């Protein structure tokens, strides 16, 4: 490949744009505050959002398979309160954490069975469990909190190594991103996800165990919410039923802004990781600028919408050379999934889908 071709390819990648966005927001934040561009701030930038990132990694699998799981934050809350109750009853903290993971996986599995076996729409199912799990968390722990966790455990979320600079939580996030990235992009299970997300019926006819894979992704999403919960409690040192309230916007934004097609079939783990950094950096920058929480939510919300619209335009570009592509892309978004599939044979084999 020529140097020009390589440059062209790099330029054409979503991830490159995200890096450009990170640099752009970085420059903006730097002009706002001399404290932005310090090693301490840069390394610590993502730490409060590591639990968001871990949930996003799990959600990536679900969205690539063409589904959605908006119950992740509530799953985290139930997992965390179970973990806390078991720990408060005198059980070893690590054993209690494992029990929390089991609960989270079970809740994810429940979502998966409803969606995959009964073949119900995941948005409706997980909207229901979003509310039900949140309620369950309050039933289990009430308005109380548990906070007496030992330092040996809280270090997984709030500890620092290498001269008190490098957050342990960041390493955990990167570790999981690497492992899950390999699962997504190298294994057969990963390939199944892309196939199902691109066209579920076609996947079924080509022998992909569609039902089983769909159940598994929801269980995986639940497990990741549980792991996010373990890091969450470690970082904040407090387990309550309101855990992770308000974090769903950031989770979904990280996934969609990361280039994962909201209709399924396209996405990369690297993109999601970069998008998480961008979201964390943007929030950090806005805090440096003393922009209030509600305004921050507007900006992140607009970013989510922009990512969806841009994704739609890109998809239109991929599938058609005819000029009013962007407009048709938008229209397709409105008409929905079936029309989309009619004009998009299979993204999986497309050389330009970035894999």
């Amino acid at each position, binding site marked *: 490949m020529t140097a020009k071709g390589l440059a062209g390819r790099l330029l054409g990648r979503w991830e490159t744009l995200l890096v450009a966005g990170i640099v752009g927001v970085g420059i903006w934040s730097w002009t706002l505050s001399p404290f932005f561009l310090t090693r301490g701030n840069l390394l610590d930038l993502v730490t409060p*959002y590591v639990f968001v990132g871990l949930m996003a990694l799990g959600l990536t699998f679900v969205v690539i398979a063409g589904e959605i799981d908006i119950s992740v934050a509530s799953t985290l809350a139930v997992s965390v309160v179970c973990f806390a109750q078991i720990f408060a009853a005198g059980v070893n903290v690590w054993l209690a954490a494992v029990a929390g993971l089991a609960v989270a996986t079970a809740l994810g599995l429940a979502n998966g069975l409803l969606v995959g076996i009964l073949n119900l729409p995941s948005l409706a199912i997980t909207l229901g469990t979003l509310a039900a799990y949140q309620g369950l968390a309050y039933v289990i722990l009430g308005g109380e909190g548990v906070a007496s966790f030992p330092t040996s455990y809280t270090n997984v979320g709030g500890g620092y190594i290498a001269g008190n600079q490098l957050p342990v939580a960041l390493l955990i996030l990167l570790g999981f991103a690497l492992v899950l990235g390999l699962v997504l992009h190298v294994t057969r299970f990963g390939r199944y996800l892309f196939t199902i997300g691109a066209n579920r019926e076609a996947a079924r006819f080509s022998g992909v165990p569609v039902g089983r894979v769909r159940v598994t992704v929801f269980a995986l999403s639940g497990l990741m919410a549980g792991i996010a919960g373990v890091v969450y409690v470690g970082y904040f040192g407090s387990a*309550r039923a309101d855990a992770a309230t*308000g974090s769903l916007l950031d989770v979904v934004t990280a996934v969609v802004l990361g280039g994962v097609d909201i209709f399924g079939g396209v996405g990369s783990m690297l993109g999601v990781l970069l998008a998480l950094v961008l979201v964390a950096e943007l929030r950090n920058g806005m805090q440096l600028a*003393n922009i*209030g929480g509600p*305004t921050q939510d507007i900006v992140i919300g*607009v970013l989510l919408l922009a990512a969806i619209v841009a994704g739609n335009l890109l998809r239109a570009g991929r599938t058609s050379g005819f000029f009013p592509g962007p407009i048709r892309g938008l229209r397709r978004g409105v008409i929905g999934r079936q029309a989309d599939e009619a004009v998009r044979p299979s993204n999986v084999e497309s050389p*330009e889908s970035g894999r």
Partner: protein
Amino acid sequence: MKHRKKLGLAALAAGVTLIIALAVALSAGAGTTKRQAGYKIFFLPKTTTIPVFTQNSIGAKRAAKELGDTLTYNGPTAVTGPAQVPFINTAARQGYNAIVISTPDGNAVAPALKRAAAKGVKVVSYDADTRPDSRVIFVAPTANSLIGTSQVEAIGKQIGYKGDIAILSANVTSPNQNTWIKFMKIALKKPKYKNMKLVKIAYGNDEPTESAKQTQGLIQAYPNLKGIISPTTVGVQAAAQELQQEGKCGKIKLTGLGLPNDMRKYVKAGCAGNFALWNEQDLGYLATYVAHYVLAGKLTGKIGETFKAGHLGTYKVQVSDGNKPVVVLGPPLVFTPQNIDKYHF
């Protein structure tokens, strides 16, 4: 095909640029008072979406202006401790000298506050306390004993210090409520209140419908009932509404702890003669003064230290309700038809 793709990418680039521009434009209107000499204080409420905290910030900004300090008021949308943590981290990095915080989860913000303290930031909590080891001083709106005595006086005044009264509380297990009721019972033993008799404590579980039902029950079961005290914002509002529906306004008097915005129409209709809370502006004002004096080295958190907080007068660092070191704003502020329009939260 390439052409379409470039169009999409250009659209995304334009989108990102637009968002950054939006953020920059919005940052121009951010809430930092004019930069000047003095200390930099970060005022962090539970959330910026509840009027009470806006009132705190008005008082806080006034205090900062008097003291020559720079005050930034900012906070999250979600009312959780974890949502406050990024704000604490950023404030510490930005070189703020002090953080004044009201938190819904003292445990969750403690590690972040300690990290900030290790960087030299002084922490003062107000309204809702953090863990004692993560702040220098707590500025309390009032004290339990003051709430107890003030509520008894507020209903006594309405019923001429004579007759049967009842209490409409929240939950049987609510520690705050039970402490306040204990102090009400102690106050009722004073000679001034000897003709007042507490006949019943009802529990509305801080739910509007249950509180209304309990109020109805009190009216039916105690025909000689003269007054009700409801020391919960939900209870007092529900009781006022119930009295209005039953046409008992003025016949059975009502007081409690409530929010002026909730209670305005009932006070004006005579369904609640008065009710109490504290002056939220003064609370923010006092907390900012405390932060300033902590930074100046004048307050260290030693019991017995005194200082003058602008127009509010002299205060003392003390032990209050088993917590220390605490600065107490004072007895609750009683809202009446005459003064209620001065308060908007």
